[in-house]
């Protein structure tokens, strides 16, 4: 679709004097995505194989024929393999929840902005209610109700975060739907669905993409937070947040268990947020 291609090009047009090129952060993100996708091929060992005689080994030691590059955890599992597999959970949860909440939020927000009337009242008041409750609290309550687990975490995050997209999509749709080109499209007989997704959405996708990137970083942290509290993915599945939670108990004797997943979380959230910042700087003409 040419409209979306043009919107995409406009988003990544680079400017001179940007400082650290955004490519560096894109590369970090890309490496993490590749590692996550090919985790079973890259990881040296099975992440769930226990080795009780090789418990809490520091990085760079060998025990019973297993070389622990990043050390081992309290059950003698290879930390490197667990970190690599943990990337899958962090990225998958973040991707899926951003996509799900984005689709729901953008659709509802655009509908509210375009149709007005009772749709607008219902959707936007719902948005206000959701945004007035601290998101992590809402997520914790919903996980407790639905029960923990990978899919439930995605569902809960999507359910708690859609109002962010809805509010922005609503405001942007209000602004764009009074544009003459929307009126012309309607005069050509375009129906509401075509007007919304072909004529309005490409023109408001830029600010929404910025929100989505920032939300992505937040979703990684939310998943880690829920797993840290034992409400996220369940053992023995590896997740950076869950590893942090376990590592906390050993932080004085085996610092590596909490440090490496924490470092990965930090790098991932940092690069995603910087990409988002750069994106919004590109898109905001005032900050050029």
């Amino acid at each position, binding site marked *: 679709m*040419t409209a979306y291609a043009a919107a995409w090009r406009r988003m990544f047009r680079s400017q001179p004097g940007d400082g650290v090129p955004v490519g560096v952060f894109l590369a970090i993100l890309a490496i993490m995505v590749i590692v996550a996708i090919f985790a079973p091929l890259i990881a040296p060992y099975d992440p769930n194989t226990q080795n009780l005689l090789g418990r809490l080994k520091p990085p760079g030691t060998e025990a019973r024929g297993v070389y622990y590059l990043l050390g081992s955890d309290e059950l003698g599992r290879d930390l490197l393999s667990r970190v690599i597999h943990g990337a899958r959970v962090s990225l998958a949860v973040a991707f899926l929840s951003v996509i799900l909440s984005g689709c729901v939020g953008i659709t509802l927000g655009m509908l509210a902005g375009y149709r007005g009337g009772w749709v607008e009242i219902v959707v936007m008041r719902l948005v206000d209610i959701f945004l007035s409750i601290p998101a992590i609290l809402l997520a914790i309550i919903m996980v407790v109700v639905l029960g923990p687990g990978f899919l439930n975490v995605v569902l809960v995050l999507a359910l708690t975060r859609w109002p962010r997209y809805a509010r922005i999509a609503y405001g942007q749709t209000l602004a764009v739907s009074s544009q003459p080109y929307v009126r012309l499209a309607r*005069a*050509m*007989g375009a129906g509401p669905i075509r007007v919304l997704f072909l004529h309005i959405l490409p023109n408001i996708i830029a600010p929404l993409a910025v929100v989505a990137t920032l939300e992505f970083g937040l979703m990684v942290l939310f998943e880690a937070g829920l797993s840290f509290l034992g409400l996220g993915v369940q053992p023995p599945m590896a997740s950076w947040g869950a590893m942090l939670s376990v590592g906390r108990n050993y932080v004085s004797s085996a610092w590596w268990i909490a440090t490496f997943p924490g470092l990965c979380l930090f790098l991932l959230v940092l690069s995603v947020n910087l990409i988002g910042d750069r994106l919004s700087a590109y898109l905001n003409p005032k900050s050029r």
Partner: protein
Amino acid sequence: MAEPQTLEIRDLSIGVGAHSVVDGVDFSIGRGEIVALVGESGSGKSLTALAIMGLLSGSVHQTGGTATFEGKALNLGDEAAMQKLRGTSLSMIFQEPVASLNPLLSVGAQVAESLVVHGRASATDAWDRAVETLRDVGIPAPEQRARQLPSSLSGGMCQRVMIASALIAAPRLLIADEPTTALDVTIQAQILHLMRRLRDETDTSVLIITHDMGVVASVADRVCVMYGGRIVEQAEVHALFAAPRHPYTKLLLSTIPRMDGPRKTELFSISGVVPDVSAWPEGCRFRTRCPLASNICATRPPLIPVSDAARDHVAACWHSDQVEGLA
């Protein structure tokens, strides 16, 4: 009459909030006829056009009136029915040509829009016809231009692209809202020529909205003059220019600068401004600016034939017989 009018509007009224901005407008457009709707800004001519397309929105709404399209009653408020007609039987072009095109969609796709929307042609077929139509409206190298975004086209070209997008549907009625206002004179002449050709070749009816009397004189068959949300005079174009029978029309025509007049004379203007919607006077709405105004003007004048000989020349003025002596 054997053949039904293409469009017949009876007693159309439009309100904005509590105010009535278009009040009891009656007119009709015959098959292959070009009708001009003239009036100052705020006289309600653009709203009338949008109402015919069923595109009124927000706080602007139709408060009364009926429409008949090619002999069939038309409910202008029925969105589903109107959507079927838009881009097939009805199409419209707007002022602001650049803002009227989607900045992220190739112009070819936008010209093909109505064919694609109504499933009247396959994607490749629609594209080919879009390129053909762009050629028809005088866009050079249409194959290349069709792939470009509106931002790489000039304002005049954007206007022609918009006209192409309206023509490709082969509508029965084309509504053109100030189609030439943003254009320079040579392009203006081409566009008007295009509309006349459209009428001549396909018998399309055209409603052209303008405040430019030059445009009216060069394309229109019949003219409706609007003032304060009402039609004040309606006549065949020559009759209107030769013998206007409403003081507003007469004064409006006097404002046209003449090329053969003496130089250095001050240009004529109608004193005062169009009153705000909330301050429209009772009765005739022009009476606060009218040199002929008298007590009877506080009663609304009906739109009546100016003489028994010219039944289709109607004016809403109690003093239409005195208009000739004005200015």
